[in-house]
Each structure stands twice: as C-alpha cells, then as structure tokens.
C-alpha cells in the first residue's frame, strides 16, 4: 500500500467510525483505535490516533491519551470541534477585515457568528452544506465559516471596497 493509500485508508476508517457513532456512542478500546487510525513511530501512534479522531469530530470517554491498554472507551461524535474551527477561521478573517476597514471586520464577524450558530443549532443542515470529503472536526467548521465569509466578502465587502476606491 502506498503512503497516500495508507493515509486515505486511515481517514476512511475514521469516517466509518463516525458513521457508526451517528446515533449512539460506540464501545471500543485504545488498541483497536490505535491499530485503525495511526502510523509511524510507537511514540507518536497515540497522538496521531487522537488527532485523527479529532479531525473527524470524534472524542473518547475517557480521553484516549493517558489510558491504560485495554481500557474500554466510548467513542462519540462532537460538534464542539467544528464550532472551534469556525471560530478560529472567523477570528483570522475578522482581524484581517478590521485591519482594512472596521465594516469589513464587522461583516466577517457576523458571518462567523452565523456559521457557529448554524453548527450549534442546525448541525444536520451544516453537515449537508460542507462537502463529504472534508472531515467533520475543526476542518468542517473552518470550511463553513470561510465559505460564509467569502460570500459576505463577495456580496458586500467587494462592492464597498470598489465604491470607496471610486470604481463604482
């Protein structure tokens, strides 16, 4: 198996786990998760497993890092990571917009709030808006927020910018 195929297989396994945890937490243990989701040196296998779970919007109870081998774990979905991703992307966009003109920052902040609100209140709708290829952790939130910020930018910020420059 090539390196790229290995990476794809790892993420496919994580997606599969997420599907299995769609309605209720899934029982598993550390070694099973590590064998499915990790690669590389022994030192880093657990960190990579935990990272892959987070990437796909999954958490374990208790937390994967620090538990003994064979400890039963409950794997469940979380929307908090997607919200974090939206907020991180939104803060960057808002800071950039504010540095140019406060109104851009305000618009981008509103777009970010909209994305975060959507993720919290209508997770199913947000899930449909984000392409399937994007993992459902922070990436999904960041992509959703970036899309909304870009839309606001094109629809509002660009006309405002053009008007200020006298292009319109």
């Amino acid at each position, binding site marked *: 198996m090539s390196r790229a195929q*290995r*990476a794809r297989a790892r*993420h496919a396994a994580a997606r599969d786990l997420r599907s299995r945890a769609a309605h209720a937490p899934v029982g598993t243990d550390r070694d099973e998760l590590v064998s499915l989701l990790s690669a*590389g040196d022994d030192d880093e296998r657990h*960190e*990579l497993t935990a*990272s*892959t779970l987070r990437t796909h919007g999954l958490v374990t109870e208790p937390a994967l890092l620090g538990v003994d081998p064979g400890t039963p774990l409950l794997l469940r979905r979380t929307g908090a990571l997607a919200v974090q991703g939206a907020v991180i992307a939104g803060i960057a966009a808002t800071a*950039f917009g504010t540095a140019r003109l406060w109104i851009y920052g305000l618009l981008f902040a509103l777009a970010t709030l909209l994305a975060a609100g959507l993720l919290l209140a209508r997770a199913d709708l947000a899930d449909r808006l984000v392409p399937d290829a994007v993992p459902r952790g922070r990436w999904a939130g960041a992509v959703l927020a970036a899309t909304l910020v870009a839309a606001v930018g094109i629809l509002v910020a660009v006309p405002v910018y053009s008007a200020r420059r006298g292009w319109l």
Partner: protein
Amino acid sequence: VTLRSRAHLVVLVAGALVVGAAAALLVAIHVNTIALDETIYKASAVHYTSGLPGSLMHDLTARGTARLYSLLIAPLFAVLDGDLAVRWARAFTTALYVASAIPVYLLARLVVRSRWGAVVAALATITAPWLVLTSALFSESLSLLAFCWTLVAMVHALRRPAWWRDVLVMTGLVVLLCTRVQLGALIPAWAIVVVLWQLREARALGLGVWDLGFILRRTLMRYPLTVLGVALVLVVLVALLAEGSLHHRIQVVFGGYSEIQDRTTLPIEPGRAISFEVVAFAVGVGLVPAILALGWLRAALLGRLGREAFDLALLGTILLSVLFAGTVFAQNGYLGVNSEERYYLYVLPLVWIGAVAAWEDGRVTRGWLAASGLGLAVLAATVDVGNVDLNATRFFLAPVAATVNHLSPRLSGDVESVLGVGPGRQVLVVSVVLLAGVVTVLLLRSRWGWAPLALALAVQLGVTVYAFEGTRGGLANVDSRILPMSFHELGWVDRATPGSPPVTWLDSELRVPGFADQERTALFYNDEISSVMKIGPQMLSPVGSPLDALPVVGLAPAGPTTLPAAPTGWFVELRDSPFIQLGGRLAAVDAVGPYELREVGARDRVTWIADSLADDGIVSKQRPARMLAPSGTRATLLLSAPTPAPTSVIVRAGGRRQVVRFARGAGERRVTLRLCAASGAVPVELRAERTTRLPDLRDVSVVVRGVHVTPVRC
C-alpha cells in the same frame, strides 16, 4: 582516552592556532591602512565602551542590526589606546576566523568517514584565500564562525528534534542577524527547512492533508521557538502592514539596507553574479575540491550516500540558495569590477566537506565528477572572473578574482613562451578548469587518488599566500596596505593624553578632496575623540561618517568685532585652519595627517575664527570672507588661485587695504597681516575683485588654504 587516540584533535587545534598566528603576526596586526567598513565597526566598538545597553540600542554608526562584532571587540577599545586596540582587535578577529575549524570538523564528521579526512576539511577551510579578510576589522570572521556553529546546531536539531536544540538554532540565527544583516536571510531559510523536513517526515508516515493539525502540533513540539518566532514575525508584519507603518519600521531596523524595499527594478545579471562567485570559489580552493564537492552534492541529493549526506546536502543547498539569492538581490546583481567574494564565504566549509567526502567515497563516480568539471568549465566560460579592479583593497574583498587578474598575464606569458601563443584570461581559466577535471577523473580512484586533492591544497595555499602578498605590498603594481608609518604615530592623540580624558574634534577643516579620509584615519586610531565642536549652526557642511555619529557641541559664532569665549579641554584641530584656531598648549602633532592636539585652559582664547567663509575656503563675489583675530596677532594667509585664470582679491585688515593679484597659472601666495587695534578683536576681510567662473556658477577669486597665526607686540 589516550593522546594517540585524540591525535587528530590535537592536530586540528594546533593547525588552527598555527594558521591564526601566522595570519595575525605576519600581516593582520601590521596593516595600517583602513577600509571604510572598518571605521564603522570600530566607531561602534568605541561607542559601546560606555552607556550599555543604551549605547547598543542607539548606535548611529551601526548598519541595521549588525552590532555583535563591534560589541565583542569593544572591551579592547575600553582598556587600550586606539592604535593598540586596533592591532589586538585584528588578532582577535583572526582567532575568530580560524576557530571555525572546530565546527567545520564536527560537520565533516557527519559525512566524512575518516577523522583525519575531517581534520583536512576543517584546516583546508580556514587556509583558503579568504583568510585574508582577517587583515581588516570585518565582521565576516565572526559570521563565518557563527554560521558554522549554527549549521552544526541545525543538523542536530533536524536529526534529533528537541526544544533545546531548537533554542540553540534560533540563538545561532539571532547571533548571525546581529553580526551581519545579510545573514538575516537564513531565518526564513531555516523556516523553509523546518517546513520541508516536517512535510517529508509526514509523507514518510503516510499523513495526508487532513492531518495538518497533527503535523502542526508535532512541529510545534519539536521546534517551539522556530514556530512561535515565525508566527510572531508574521503577526507583527501583518499588523504593521495593516497599520501602514511597515515601510518605516523596516527603515528604522535595517538602516541603509532598507532601500531594498524601495527597489523598482530587478537585479542586473544575477546569473552572472552567481557564476562569478562559483568560479571564484572553485579557483580559490584549487578547482579539484569544487569538482569533487559538486559530484558529492549530486550523489547526496539523489540519496546515494545515505541519510546524513542527504540531510547535510539538502540543508546546505536550501540555506545557501536563499542566502545567496537574497545577497544578489540586495547588491543589485553583478557588480562588475567591484565584485566581492566575502558575501559568499559561507559556501566554503561545505565545499571542503563535500570534497573530502567524495574523495573517500567510491559511490561518487567518475562520470559525475566529469559532469561536474564540465559544468564548472561552462560556467567559467560565461564570466571573466579576473575582471575586478586591481588594488590592495580588492585583494581582501575578492582575493581570488584579484589574484586571477594579477597572475593571469604572467601565466599567459609563460604559456606563450612554451606554445608560442598566449591565451586570454578567460581561456586560461577555462583551460585550467578542464585540466583539473581531467586530472580528477583520471587519478581519483587510482593509487594516485591523493594527488589531485594534495595538488588542490597546494594551489589553494598558493592563492592564499598571493592574496596576502597583495595586502603586504609584495606584488608589482599593487599598493601595500602596510605603509611606512608606526602605529604609535597613528595613535598620537591617545598616546599624548594621560588618563584618557575626553577629546573634542574641532570642526575646522576645509572641505577639499581627501579631507574625510584624513578625518577617518585620525578617528580610527584615537578613541579618546568623543565629541565634535562646530562653529555656529551653518558655518560648515556636516562632518562625514563616522565622525557624524559623535555628539556635537556648539561654539558660539564670532560677532563682527567680538571673539567667542574659548572652550576648555583637549581639542584636535586642523593645523593653520582658516576657520578656527584655539590657543593653549600644543600637546601633540599628527605626524601622518594635518592635525594637532591642544590642551586649552581657562586663560587661553580663540586665536582665529571665521565669521563667514565658504567651507572649501573659496572667496567669491557672492560670498566674501570675514575672519577675526585678537589684537596682537600676526596672521599669514596662505592663498591660491582656484583656477589657472588671473584673479585678484582685496584684503582689508586693521584699517589697511591691499590688493593681492594672481597672474595666469600662479601658484600659492602668502600674505602677512599685522593685526593691532584698540579693541579686543581685529576683523579681516577678503573681497573678490577680479574673478573667474567655476562650473557651480560661483565667481571666485582666491582660495584661503590656511592661516598661520603668531602673537606679536603692538
């Protein structure tokens, strides 16, 4: 551990000491002419002898962030007289340079199997022609040492990442930035290296784009200071850009170098600039090592020589590519006859390490070496490496190019005496490169395999000795940088002032060609000159660098018939200055320049002062000269005509009037005035009568070149 098992280290250290001692004792401490950059480093060093850390932060002389070298040599200037401090600083600079042998040895041990091979690489690095840079107070000696140690730290940080190794790397990079602004380019280069290494490892682990979070966290844990530093720099840059003050901030931090950000044109012939340096460094190391190193580089980058060789080759390639690209851009491309090699010195350790590694490793094949030799010959054909100005300064700024320039006509003559036809310089260089390539390919893997490298070492040493001879004045048609004047004479101010009192430079010079060099020489060897006194705000144009970095003290201008009160203390003034002369004890006279040192007491007075005189001493229709002297003075004016045309001037003093005429082509004339009056001061006026027009549209009559004043009884 026995001495025998450590014999290679003993040889390494002893060899470095011998090289350093020879360079310092035979040349460096005897050089008594100065290069412009030396005056800047030295001025900063003296500046740091008091008021640290404030003086370090507010250094008007320093170029951008380049302050560390001056800071290191500052203690010498704090405790020694100026001329002695200069000599010790040169010896110290030489020690810094040869100390590079140790980190080069450590680097070489990564890829060179034999300890003795690593010793050869290290000693060969420090005996290359650029050793001649130690004949001046230049920061390259420190930057080469710091670069080599930083490279060692980088290699280890990449092989076994740990936060403390990252701290060592970042410390090295900060040291480099604070030594030479040029080396700031290594900071983004290191960031590129870290990113590439992490991506390479991520790929090896089978990580994909969605694992970016893991890769970032992993990078942060391994290189915390690098990641945080880069992030901080990016945030600050974006913030300053958004605020609109980035341009100004870059100006503040990088000083004169910041003009790069205002460039609107691309560098001129950057490829030629790089070709010039590649060929110069190849010739400087004796060609064979360059051919071997290129062959080794290719094999290493293709992964044929193992992980260590690949890592060092890739690291060196990225660092030097970014550094040299930045340098070529900064210097605006090919500099022609003003080309310098010192900016590219950092390739030297890797050339010798690669050469020795290739020499002992059979996996570097003859075919690759042949390709390297041919490639080098093609490069040599594209640029005339000997095309530089031939002077003593060029022999340390570009020792190889200067050597090729000086030596090639003689070699060509020798060839002509044998073959009947003398090749041109470029043909000669290309032929020698091809010859070196053939010798390397034919002999390398034979029982005579040691011969090409030994021959190269001999050639390298020959070029080094030639460059030093260029500095010492041992070559025909090249001025020596060791002039027949003693350091004791040069440090005449410091030597004549017991207890190191502050001495004031009295701005009293005619702004004529060469005056700035005289100023620099006096200031360079005399540390006690710590301020500048100027007559009034507008009397003379500003003083030059580095005198302009000293604090300025004002002296009240003369009134129409009144002299200002004389300041007290120690003063260096121009002998027979037409602008100002102070009374007081003549403490010392400059044996090599036009200055004298006076100790002025409370009872002494101003003995001559100009109220109005152009700063080149010219009396014109637009600006007559008005000067004052105390009553009881005999003043002898030294006048000359500004052009060969006939002119005349009316001289009025003490109620008398006389016309001084200059016939066509007349030389200098002395006019003696006896100045006596009832009041305290006697005005002297020179008004143009017959004039000639200068290109600057002034109608001029005479130049007041000097005034010799002596007391006289009225």
